[in-house]
């Protein structure tokens, strides 16, 4: 039986604007002007609810904010205060909103069980904080798996003074992944059958046709129980990739006038998808990353992991349309939009490129080419001597014998694309660092996993059972080294802080999320300036759900003795 509410929401879904029906104004095709329509001011009201969303003509359950998917754009000004009242109108589920990348008092960070108790059905929680920064950010649920079913939206903060990034027009480009399968079903299928969604495995037919690995390599990888085609866990076989809530066929369009400097604020709000972004025919000038301005770098393509944001300037001078392509990292599908001088125009969509294959280097074998003889090192796949502090639990399939700093390399799958690809090593902060102390100590955190059991954790132990937090002294300067012992990239996000990527630049870039390459290692310097408890986790939603999560404590708190 259908209630009046269901029927009304269904109708709204089916008859709404655009193919998605729940689009907020900022996400609609052809949205013009310098500032997309937004919620702003000091008092903002958000209501989290349940609705049916129509995507590609099919309808599915969504968790929406103020009736839209993605949620409304929030636009604030650096230096202002804001009070955001969030009401939970879901029938039987807690909710929460986390302000991703924002420096807020910890109790306003929105992680249930860490920062606050969460928002019960029918309740309203008011987030109240000063806005201390500028740039491109976003917000999303930190409850259950609501982020996968629609609870995400952009946030733009205009600088108090002049914007160091000059532009004539801007578009917010929120990339995401949508599945008609419930996220709990996605998770369960991965637990039962870890390669479930991979429809690009190596085959016998491929071997006969001379594709992919040689027989010798296939046997060697089979011996290790490693699948080189395991690039993404959830793929285009069940995902529709969205630009501002539009499927590829719906073709979200952003307008420009010839010769304008157009600022594209890319936000990867996907649950599980790393995107490779390009606009054939246009050079992309990367001007800010994770909200923070960087010295401009011109590239043809960049990779962005879930939770990262990239601000890019393009300057189209021809009276033609350009296709905005965001290809899933395993090349199982793409999100597509268009930049055009007028609505209704489109440009060719380049075919999806061949999926990459993981290499020995992705397994943490350094620069070796197949061989395993490395004097003085234990090159076995799971040796305690290569990570003495990591217990070899069933969740640890491999320990990288020789993890490398891979920040100067193009990201996975973009090594041979034949044009300029952004690397992390190219990013330099536009401004001087505010804390020039060298780090006083170093901590190492291993990113561990077991692909065969879909187990993911830090240092071999999932958060779930019981885990000690990571402790920082307030205002101490720490170097954190992340070692990726798995064959997959993990975007690791620290709440409440920016850290400086130790990427070889004099001015180390500030980030809130760093994608650690498979078999790679990344160091960042952190000033633990924000007291409280903070979530620290992989931003692949289902990796986090599997246990790749911990709490960071920064003490003393305000008013607490040191």
């Amino acid at each position: 039986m259908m209630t009046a509410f269901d029927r009304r929401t269904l109708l709204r879904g089916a008859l709404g604007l655009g193919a998605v029906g729940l689009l907020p104004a900022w996400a609609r095709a052809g949205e013009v002007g310098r500032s997309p329509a937004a919620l702003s001011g000091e008092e903002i009201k958000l209501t989290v609810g349940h609705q049916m969303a129509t995507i590609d003509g099919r309808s599915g359950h969504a968790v929406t904010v103020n009736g839209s998917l993605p949620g409304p754009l929030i636009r604030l000004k650096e230096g202002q205060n804001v009070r955001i009242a969030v009401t939970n109108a879901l029938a039987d589920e807690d909710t929460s909103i986390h302000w991703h990348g924002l420096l807020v008092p910890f109790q306003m960070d929105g992680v249930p069980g860490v920062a606050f108790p969460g928002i019960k059905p029918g309740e309203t929680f008011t987030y109240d904080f000063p806005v201390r920064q500028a740039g491109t950010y976003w917000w999303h649920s930190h409850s259950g798996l609501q982020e996968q079913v629609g609870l995400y939206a952009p946030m733009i903060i205009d600088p108090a003074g002049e914007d160091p990034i000059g532009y004539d027009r801007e578009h917010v480009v929120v990339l995401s992944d949508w599945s008609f399968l419930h996220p709990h079903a996605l998770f369960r299928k991965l637990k039962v059958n870890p390669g479930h969604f991979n429809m690009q495995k190596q085959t016998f037919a491929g071997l006969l046709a001379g594709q992919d690995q040689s027989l010798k390599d296939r046997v060697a990888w089979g011996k290790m129980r490693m699948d080189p085609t395991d690039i993404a866990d959830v793929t285009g076989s069940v995902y529709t990739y969205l630009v501002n809530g539009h499927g590829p066929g719906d073709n979200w369009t952003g307008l420009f006038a010839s010769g304008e400097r157009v600022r594209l604020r890319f936000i990867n709000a996907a649950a599980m998808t790393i995107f490779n972004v390009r606009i054939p025919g246009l050079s992309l000038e990367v001007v800010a990353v994770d909200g923070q301005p960087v010295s401009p770098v011109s590239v043809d393509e960049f990779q962005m992991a879930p939770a990262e944001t990239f601000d890019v300037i393009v300057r189209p001078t021809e009276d033609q349309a350009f296709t905005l392509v965001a290809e899933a990292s395993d090349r199982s599908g793409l999100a597509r939009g268009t930049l055009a001088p007028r609505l209704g125009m489109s440009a060719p969509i380049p075919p999806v490129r061949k999926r990459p294959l993981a290499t020995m280097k992705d397994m943490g074998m350094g620069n070796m080419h197949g061989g395993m003889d490395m004097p003085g090192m234990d090159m076995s796949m799971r040796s305690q001597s290569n990570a003495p502090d990591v217990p070899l639990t069933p969740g640890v399939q491999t320990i990288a014998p020789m993890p490398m700093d891979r920040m100067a390399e193009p990201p996975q799958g973009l090594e041979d694309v034949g044009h300029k690809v952004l690397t992390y090593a190219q990013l330099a902060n536009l401004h001087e660092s505010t804390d020039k102390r060298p780090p006083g100590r170093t901590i190492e955190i291993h990113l561990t996993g077991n692909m065969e059991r879909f187990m993911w954790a830090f240092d071999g132990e999932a958060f779930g059972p019981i885990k000690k937090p990571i402790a920082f002294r307030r205002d101490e300067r720490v170097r954190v080294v992340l070692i990726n012992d798995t064959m997959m990239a993990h975007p690791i996000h620290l709440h409440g802080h920016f850290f400086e990527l130790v990427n070889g630049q004099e001015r180390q870039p500030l980030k809130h999320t760093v994608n650690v390459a498979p078999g790679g290692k990344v160091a960042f310097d952190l000033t633990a300036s924000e007291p409280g408890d903070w979530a620290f986790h992989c931003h692949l939603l289902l990796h986090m759900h599997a246990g790749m999560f911990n709490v960071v404590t920064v003490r003393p708190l305000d008013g607490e003795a040191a």
Partner: protein
Amino acid sequence: MILDLQHEQHQAADPHAGHDMGSMKPAAEAAPPPVVTPRAADRLFDPKAMAAARAQLMVEHGGASVWTVRADQLEYRARKGADAQAFEGEAWWGTDAGKWVVKARGERIDGEGWEKGEAELLKAWPIGPYFDLQAGVRYDLAPPKLSKGGRSYAALGFEGLAPYWFEVQGAAYLSDRGDVSARAEASYDLRLTQKLILQPRVEADLAEAGAATLEGGLRLRYEITREFAPYVGVVRERAFGPAVVAGERAGSTAVVIGVRAWR
């Protein structure tokens, strides 16, 4: 300004400070601070509500239970003499730390009824990245051919993924009459295309006094979806020693058609 000066001096002494790409370690190491409890949010919110939220946080970040039900074989066996229907499957429920497993299998022969029928209830614990240890009980239905009642066993076994992607399992059983038997299985999925899979499989059953049966199967399945795959194949069974029933042939070959399905 003072900070800047210190930084300059440090740079002079240690040119790698700040961005040491080699060891990624700073020169001097301070001791880590002690791990702190009470949680910061407990000072600001109802500690009881925080405790409940924390318990939920644990479940949602590595503590979740999952389940599955699967029929690896659900097939019709056409062969010389009476045809048969066979079933083999399992269900499990639990977390990464441990699961409950139910296994069941059976074979029904046209005109004779159930030839075999058995079920196991096991507790499983992960041992290493690829294998589970399983312990529990097994119960065999009484075949109508035999006048005696059903039989129960204590079971101890393992299940997992061997190098080269072989799915293997094995178990030893101690029956309520004191005799010991064992079973081992191995299978391999040869992926011809993304959806067409050739699966060779062998199973050996050994009992005391040298009785044994060996079953080899070759099944070609087409995964319409990953969860639903019809197949055709051939199964060869052979008995050895006292397991050969008097008056019957020791071996038989069946052409099978069936479906593999799970949820």
